[in-house]
């Protein structure tokens, strides 16, 4: 099994192993395992070897290659990587010129000593929750290859859960980091909207696009998040906030944090096991408090209208000139999004402002809310409908039932993998007020320490 990111960095920095050896072993794992999983769309053997050599050389001359020295990582293929066309899950973009520089967050991870091994599969243009990609094939769940990995950052979650890399980057517009993290059994962070730079990431729903890390432990998640934080003049959405490190705060415990379970919408329409997972987290944190956020179905409706409209507008020229080159999974939805009247879009944005005000009221006396990540564990690849609480519903949009209202207003969320005897992994969302990622990390670290959550990495 692959070691965690910080464990690898400690070994490399102490020169007990070279970054070149770590890289070679990781590339070998990818060569052996990835054909069964379908995570990678490009493997960067040469540039990875060069980056690893640079880390070893820095250490040999007494330099500091960074806190993630020699840590293998990979990124969803919507991030710019120097020398590669940024596919964003499409066939169309394969004809685009290669990127001439890395996305900001990719550059920051490499600057911290991490070694980029390749790019990862996703739903086309991030418009999906399952990574059943018609061009590049489906990404398979490492815990049951007949099932989806979730999406749209499915390659990212499956690469971590499959033991290919200890760290990956994804993006989340309506749930695309949290859903696959939950279905694959790893940790995933969607930070506050505007916290991490989106420069060099292909956008989808510009009002809600976030980027963030997926990892096999809370410490690794914090380490990656910390080196990616900070202002970026290249991204107008990125807030000008200074770095607020979370890694050093992991041992603070949960004392003083007010935790509650999200009731109503977040406690219905799911399988009993997902609510049991939330309850196990609540029990561990000693809370019986329940609070209700109103109008979540309307929040989902508004998020869907905005996402469809903004996503279509970004691809208008290709929708006009070559619609049949889109993935059948996204084509009809993009075309429909292109036909939404502006009045409907503005109405959805106005509702967003209203909903944000209601949720702010909830967080006036709550620090961390608990909610399921998905209403059910990983469905089968190709499955169109699913019975939830005895009612058959379309499977794919249902995966965003509990994630979509939260990204709609940019709240920070960590999806934690719940430990237990379930045959398939389940996730619970830890949700905080904007900019309070540190509260999420304190709770996540306590749950991991107490054995309530644990990443499930394929042996």
């Amino acid at each position, binding site marked *: 099994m692959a070691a965690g990111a910080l464990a690898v960095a400690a070994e490399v920095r102490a020169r007990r192993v070279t970054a070149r050896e770590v890289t070679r072993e990781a590339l070998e794992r990818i060569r052996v395992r990835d054909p069964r999983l379908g995570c990678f769309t490009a493997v960067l053997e040469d540039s990875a070897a060069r980056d690893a050599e640079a880390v070893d050389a820095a250490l040999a001359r007494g330099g500091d290659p960074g806190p993630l020295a020699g840590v293998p990582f990979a990124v969803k293929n919507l991030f710019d990587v120097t020398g590669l066309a940024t596919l964003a899950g499409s066939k169309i973009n394969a004809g685009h010129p290669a990127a001439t520089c890395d996305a900001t967050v990719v550059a920051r991870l490499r600057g911290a000593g991490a070694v980029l091994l390749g790019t990862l599969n996703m739903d086309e243009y991030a418009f999906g929750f399952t990574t059943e990609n018609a061009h590049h094939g489906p990404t398979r769940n490492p815990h049951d290859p007949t099932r989806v990995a979730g999406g749209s950052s499915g390659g990212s979650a499956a690469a971590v859960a499959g033991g290919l890399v200890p760290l990956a980057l994804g993006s989340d517009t309506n749930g695309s980091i949290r859903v696959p993290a939950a279905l694959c059994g790893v940790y995933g962070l969607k930070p506050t909207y505007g916290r991490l730079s989106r420069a060099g990431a292909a956008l989808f729903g510009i009002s809600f696009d976030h980027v963030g890390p997926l990892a096999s432990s809370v410490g690794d998640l914090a380490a990656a998040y910390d080196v990616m934080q900070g202002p970026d003049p290249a991204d107008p959405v990125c807030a000008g906030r200074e770095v607020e490190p979370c890694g050093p705060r992991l041992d603070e415990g949960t004392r003083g944090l007010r935790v509650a379970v999200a009731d109503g919408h977040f406690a219905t329409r799911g399988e009993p096991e997902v609510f049991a997972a939330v309850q196990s987290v609540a029990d561990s944190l000693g809370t019986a408090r329940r609070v209700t956020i109103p109008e979540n179905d309307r929040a989902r*409706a*508004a998020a*869907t209208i905005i996402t469809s409209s903004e996503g279509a507008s970004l691809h208008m020229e290709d929708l006009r000139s070559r619609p049949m080159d889109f993935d059948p999974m996204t084509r*009809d939805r993009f075309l*429909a999004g292109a036909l939404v009247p502006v009045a409907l879009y503005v109405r*959805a944005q106005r509702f967003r402002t209203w909903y944000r005000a209601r949720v702010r009221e909830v967080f006036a006396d709550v620090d961390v809310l608990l909610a399921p990540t998905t209403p059910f564990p990983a469905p089968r690849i190709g499955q169109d409908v699913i019975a939830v609480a005895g009612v058959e519903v379309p499977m794919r949009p249902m995966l965003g039932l509990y994630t979509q209202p939260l990204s709609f207003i940019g709240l920070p969320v960590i999806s934690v993998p719940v430990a237990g005897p379930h045959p398939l992994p389940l996730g619970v969302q830890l949700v905080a007020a904007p900019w309070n990622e540190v509260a999420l990390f304190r709770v996540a670290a306590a749950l991991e320490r107490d054995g309530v959550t644990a990443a499930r990495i394929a042996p």
Partner: protein
Amino acid sequence: MSASPDPSEVARYVDEIAPLLGLPIPPECREAVARNLAGLFAAGALLGDFPVGDAETAPVFTP
């Protein structure tokens, strides 16, 4: 708009509006596009006349 439009009306909307936008809908996609658009209109109907007060949504633009 406070009620979901009739599906046949949505199909007619697609047939008439898409060409005006220079967006030819491939015949094999027509039905699914109309179905998806009907879903978006239904989502809009859910927002309908829901009172949001004086919610301001102007993008923040710094000249």
